[in-house]
């Protein structure tokens, strides 16, 4: 037995292991000692009759009598010949978009193969995540697998669970009737760094283990029917990946029987990206990303849950009393304002479109309310476009910024009537050490100088 009492030192590892009590204590201590200054900086002029003029100039200056040289002098692209078709066989974003990248959170993991990259939510529009910006979570690195050699096997925990164990090629799976559906995927540990206190500056790091795509594939139910599964006996499905980690997760048969669980090969009109499990992954709508097994090689049907490594060592939620919640899977109703959001600067006073994302693992979004005064008063936002079940929903609401400090929040409600909780409400039942399933209301502080910061209220 190694020393029980020896402190373990720093421990900020993969997202399910990043709690670092020493670090948290330090941040709390600094927050306490520095709060007075901070509050003064943020709020000193809040009570003043008129806001002090901003240090920022107006965002669209005009020199009297002359005009904008961008208008007065015709640019090269108005006076020359542009580039040819198919200059790029697979088109790329503008070179001016180079800041829009998925990123790792510094210090979160020690290796890049067991790590996560976060989607840049602050720069995305609508509900679809461009496939190249989809967040990544790999446990043992990603692969680009030859689809002609990939196989899907379907078997039972014993032979009585189905009529025959089967094997499918990709060619065969792609011959079957397909469906295409939009769904969000969120890592169970999304926003996990923020359970105890503010830990990251931007929405990319606080909420960026979230993406949404149109997935195309075959309902798993079709394959189980084909193999003659005995649904009276087989209450659980185990999905298993073909990569080194061979991720396994238990999925309830009721979900599969409903037809919503897909064996998917398509993503946003093309094949899955290798980082997302090319050529085959499971789609489990409304359930945390770890269950959406990538590089899917095998489906087993059985009469008991499996307590796999990712449902008995990782992805278990510590709650007050020292118990861990096991088989926690649903991503509950949640929302976040993506613009304006942490790490940004408002260029001027005046009109802004507050915009964000809402989603629920239990169905459709019914309503999103937005507050700019830290939750005292709320207005309901416009839900844009299609409002689909277990899918991101974009919301927008008008706002005129008067230059005073503001606390921006969003609060979503889903079709079951469930309302997204505040940090206080969530911590009352789950404490601060859960790591997983943090769906609390997010607060952004807009300072007088226009800079937006990630804050938590009490």
């Amino acid at each position, binding site marked *: 037995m190694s020393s029980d009492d020896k402190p373990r030192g720093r421990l900020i*590892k993969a997202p399910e292991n990043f709690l670092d009590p020493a670090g948290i204590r330090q941040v709390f201590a600094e927050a306490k000692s520095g709060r007075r200054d901070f509050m003064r900086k943020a709020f000193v002029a809040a009570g003043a009759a008129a806001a002090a003029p901003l240090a920022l100039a107006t965002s669209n200056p005009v020199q009297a009598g002359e005009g904008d040289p961008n208008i007065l002098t015709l640019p090269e692209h108005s006076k020359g010949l542009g580039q040819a078709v198919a200059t790029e066989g697979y088109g790329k974003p503008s070179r001016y978009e180079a800041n829009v990248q998925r990123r790792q959170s510094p210090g979160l993991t020690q290796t890049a193969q067991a790590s996560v990259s976060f989607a840049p939510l602050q720069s995305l529009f609508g509900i679809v995540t461009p496939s190249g910006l989809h967040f990544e979570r790999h446990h043992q690195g990603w692969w680009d697998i030859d689809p002609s050699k990939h196989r899907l*096997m379907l078997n039972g925990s014993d032979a009585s669970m189905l009529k025959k164990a*089967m094997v499918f090629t990709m060619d065969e799976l792609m011959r079957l009737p397909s469906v295409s559906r939009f769904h969000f995927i969120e890592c169970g540990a999304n926003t996990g760094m923020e359970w105890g206190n503010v830990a990251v500056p931007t929405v990319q790091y606080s909420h960026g283990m979230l993406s949404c795509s149109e997935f195309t594939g075959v309902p798993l139910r079709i394959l189980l029917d084909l193999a003659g599964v005995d649904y009276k006996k087989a209450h659980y499905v185990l999905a298993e990946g073909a990569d080194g980690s061979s991720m396994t997760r238990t999925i309830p048969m009721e979900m599969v029987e409903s037809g919503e669980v897909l064996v998917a090969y398509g993503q946003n009109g093309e094949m899955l990206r290798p980082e997302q499990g090319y050529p085959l992954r499971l789609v489990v709508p409304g359930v945390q990303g770890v269950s959406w097994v990538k590089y899917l090689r095998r489906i087993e049907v059985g009469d008991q849950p499996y307590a796999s490594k990712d449902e008995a060592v990782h992805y278990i939620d510590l709650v007050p009393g020292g118990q861990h919640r096991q088989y926690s899977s649903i991503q509950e109703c949640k929302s976040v304002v993506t613009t304006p959001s942490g*790490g940004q600067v408002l260029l001027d006073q005046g009109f802004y479109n507050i915009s964000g994302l809402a989603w629920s693992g239990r169905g459709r979004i019914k309503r999103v309310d937005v507050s700019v005064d830290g939750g005292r008063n709320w207005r309901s936002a416009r839900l844009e476009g299609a409002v689909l079940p277990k899918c991101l929903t974009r919301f927008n609401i008008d706002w005129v910024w008067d230059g005073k400090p503001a606390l921006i929040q969003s609060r979503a409600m889903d079709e079951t009537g469930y309302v997204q909780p505040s940090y206080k409400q969530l911590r009352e039942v789950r404490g601060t050490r859960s790591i997983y399933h943090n769906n609390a209301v997010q607060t952004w502080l807009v300072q007088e100088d226009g800079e937006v910061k990630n804050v938590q209220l009490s």
Partner: protein
Amino acid sequence: MSSSPKFAMLGLFGTLLLATAALAQPARDFPGVGRAATPKEIAAWDIDVRPDFKGLPKGSGSVARGQEVWEGKCAQCHGIFGESGEVFAPLVGGTTPEDIKTGHVARLNDPSFPGRTTLMKVATVSTLWDYINRAMPWTAPKSLSTEEVYSVTAFLLNLGGIVPEDFVLSDQNIGAVQQRMPNRKGMTLDHALWPGKGLTKAKAPDTRAQACMKDCPAEAKISSFLPDHARNAHGNLAEQNRAVGPQHGADTSKPSGAPPQRRAEPAPAPKAAGAPTALLNKNSCSACHALASKLVGPSFQEIAKKHGERSDAIAYLSGKIRSGGVGVWGQIPMPAQTLSDADAATIAQWLKSGAPR
């Protein structure tokens, strides 16, 4: 004879009937798609082990043998005693003989205890066996024999004080070991986050927020925010936002209040001759070496500093990359690597040039 108009009519009618039937009840047997799996195929892939030990292969392994395997294949990342947090979260520690009696790890209730080790969390010994068998060692998963998996599991259990030093773990006694797992009663199914029937207990979600709209009881105080010294900890946020838009990124390389970047600058050209990142990842070098900080092995920049000046640097470094070794940087051995001469030389060349970013 189908030349008779009567037969033709019947034939047409029959076709219509068939078409209607096909529309109403599409074929769900999908002829030509899929085939039966062979017993050998199933045996090759069906490796999962359930808590009731269904799927566990017959076999055994000793703590002593486990220690040998551990020191050769596991200690690099997990430490000699499973205690290391350098690469992954620690596996061992935080459990007591009392926990083995009660079945619940008492330290899970102690917020001041740093971190949670695997043995503090895991309730089912089947999970450990399955985890090691399917996913370990990290860079060579599924390479251990059944005996090695039993042995390494036994060694870990011994480090946790769950089995004695002379123990031989087997399919026959693993059920008894389950009754000694320190956190075997540590899981709860009292929640509403399972998307099926039966397994979990709670029917309703655990929070019951209300959607108050006006003059709501609000939390007025800011209780947590990033300290100033962490302002640039995630890199310059000005470079992490689009260069045009309603808001621009804050220049966190400067103190709060600095004016934002205004103009859309063209993307910088790709840097020439930087780190051969793809190569380092492909060959799993980056699993143990980082650019500037020590991981399992020394950083690339340390290596460059120590050996880059040698006249035979490229030959020396290529050789070391391929053969591995121990003793130059400490007692954790680097295993031999199977990569081409050309790839090894590319990496060596980069190291010789100082391992630039």
